[in-house]
C-alpha cells in the first residue's frame, strides 16, 4: 500500500515538472516520470507478498499464491507505447531546437489567439 502511495508521489513529481519547467528536455523527463509512476502502479496491482511465478509446475501447489501475470503483460505493452511516445517527443524537441535555437518553451510562442 505504501508503494502505491509512493507511485502517486512520483506521478505528482512528474506532473510538476511537466507543468512548471521551462526546458523542453525537462518536460520530457517529467513526462517519463509520470509514465513510470503509472506503469509501476499497474505492476503493483498484480503483486503479492511471497507470491510465486504464475507457471504451473506442480498442481498440488497452492493456486492462490500465484502473482497475477496479466498486469505484467499489460505494463510491457504500456512500456513499449511509452518508448514510442518518448522517441517522438525527443525527435520533435530536436526539430524544435533546429528551428528556434532554444529549448525554452517561453520563447517558443508564435501561436496565440
Amino acid at each position, binding site marked *: 500500500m505504501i508503494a502505491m502511495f509512493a507511485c502517486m508521489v512520483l506521478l505528482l513529481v512528474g506532473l510538476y515538472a511537466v507543468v512548471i519547467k521551462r526546458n523542453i528536455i525537462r518536460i520530457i523527463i517529467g513526462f517519463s516520470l509520470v509514465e513510470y509512476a503509472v506503469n509501476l502502479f499497474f505492476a503493483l496491482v498484480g503483486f503479492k507478498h511471497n507470491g510465486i511465478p504464475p507457471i504451473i509446475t506442480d498442481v498440488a501447489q497452492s493456486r492462490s499464491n500465484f502473482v497475477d501475470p496479466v*498486469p505484467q503483460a499489460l505494463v510491457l505493452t504500456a512500456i513499449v507505447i511509452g518508448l514510442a511516445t518518448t522517441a517522438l*517527443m525527443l525527435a*520533435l524537441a530536436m526539430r524544435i531546437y533546429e528551428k528556434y535555437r532554444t529549448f525554452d518553451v517561453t520563447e517558443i510562442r508564435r501561436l496565440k489567439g
Partner: protein
Amino acid sequence: MDARFLPLFVVVPMASAFLIPLFSRLWPRFADLIANAAGAALLGLSVNGALCLFANSQVLLYHMGGWASALGITLEYDHLTALVLLAVNTVGLAALLFSVRYLDHYTGRWKFFSLFMLVLAGLNGVTITGDIFNMFVFIEISAVSSYALVAFGTDFDELEAGFKYMVIGEIGGTAILLAIALLYAKASTLNMAVVSQVMAGFGHTPLFWFIVATFLVGFAVKMAMVPFHAWLPDAHPSAPAPVSALLSGVFIKVLGVYAMSRVMFNVFGLSRANAAPLFNLLLAFGVLSIIAGGLLACAQKDYKRLLAYSSISQIGYILIGLGIGNYWGIVGALFHILAHALGKGLLFLTAGSVEHATGTRDLDKLSGLEKNMPVTAWSYLLGSLSLAGVPPFAGFFSKLFIIIGALSAKMYWLAVLAALFSTVTLGYLVKVVNKAFFGRKDLEPTPAREAPASMALAMLGLLVLTVALGIGFKPVLDKLVGPAANVLLQGLGYAQGVLGR
C-alpha cells in the same frame, strides 16, 4: 456480413500502412493508390456492415484467437459502432482523396499516407474493440500518429503545435492508463462486458467515482472540452488540411465522445437516474465549451483557427446532448456526431483548397474567391449552413433533437441557450463567407484557380452526404441513430448482449 469480417476494420488500414513504405519505393504513386483503395474498402465494409445490421439487428461478435469473452479480446459490432465507423470511414476516404493533389507541395508523400492509415486503424480499433486495454492501445496508436501528422509541415508553427499537442495529449492518455489500472485492480478483468457485470456488484463507492473521474479527465483531454482544450486551436490548424478534417471531424469524437460514452454508459452503467451530479457536470462543461468556443471563434482571423474553435463549440453541443441523458438528448448528440463529422470535414477541406490555391489562410488577405473557385465557395456556404443548423441540412436536425431533449427534461434555459448559440455559430461561419468568398465586392478578387478535380470531388461528396443526411433524416434516425441511442441507454444491458447472459 458475418462476424469473421470484423478484424478487417483494423487489418486493412494497418496492412496498408506497412505496405505503403514498401511499394512506394517501386513507384511513388503506389502510396496514393494503396491508401485510397484501403479507404474505399473500409467505407465499403462500414456500409455493408451497417446494411447487415439493419437487416437482422443482431450484435456481431468476433473472438480474437478463439478465446472466450472473459479471457481474450472480443470485437463487438452494434448500432453505435456502426454509426461511428460510418462517420470515420466516410471522412477518412474524403480526406485521402483530397490528399492526393493537396500533398503536391509537401515532401514525404508515403510517410503521410502511412501515418494517416495508422490513425484510421486506431480510430476503427477504438470503435470496434470490446476490451478496455485494447481500447487504450488503439487510442495510443491513433494519437501518436496524429502527433506526427500535426507536426508534418516541420515549420515553426507546426513543431510548436505538435509538441504542445503531444505533451497534453499524452497526459490524457496516461490518465486513461491509470484509470484502467485502477479498474483492473477492482474488477480483475479487462473485457468491458465482464467488467460492467463485476462493477455492478460493487456499488458507487468513493473509489468507483475516482475511477470514473480519472477516465473522464483522460477523455476530456482527448475531446478538447473546455477547460481541457488548450491544444486544439493550435494543433488542428497546423496540420495539413486533410488531417485537420480527420482530426476535427472524427478524431476528437471517437477518442473522446465515443470512448467516454461507451465507458460511462455501458461499462459503469451510469445514467441520469443514478448519477445526476455527473450528468450535470457534463452539462456544465458542455455549456462552457459552447460559449467559450463560440465567442473565441468570432474573434479569429485565421481561416482554420476559426474552424478549430468552432469544433470546440460543437463538441459542447454533443456534450449537452449526452448530459441531458434522455432518449432525444442522446439521439441529438449521436446525430450531431454524424452531422458535424461531415460538415466540419467539408469545411476543413475547403480551407485546404483555399490554402492550396492562394497560399494563405489569413481572412484579411482573401477576398472574392467565389469568382474563381465556385465549387469551394458553394461547398463552404452550404456546409456552414448545415453546421449552423439551418433547415433542411443535417445540423438542423441534430440541434432540433437536442432542444427537444432539453425541453422534455424541463431544462428550458438549456434549450434557449442551444438555440441562441446556433446563431453565434452562423455568425462566425458567415464571417468567412463574407470575407473570403462572397462579400467585399469593392476589393480586387484574390487570384486563384479552382481546386483540381479530385479535391473538388472529395468536397462535393461530403456536401452531397450532408444534404442527403438532412433531407433523409427520418430513415437514418429510425434505422441507425435511434437504435444506437438505445445501445447507450440500455446501460448494463450491453453486457447481456455481448455475453449472452
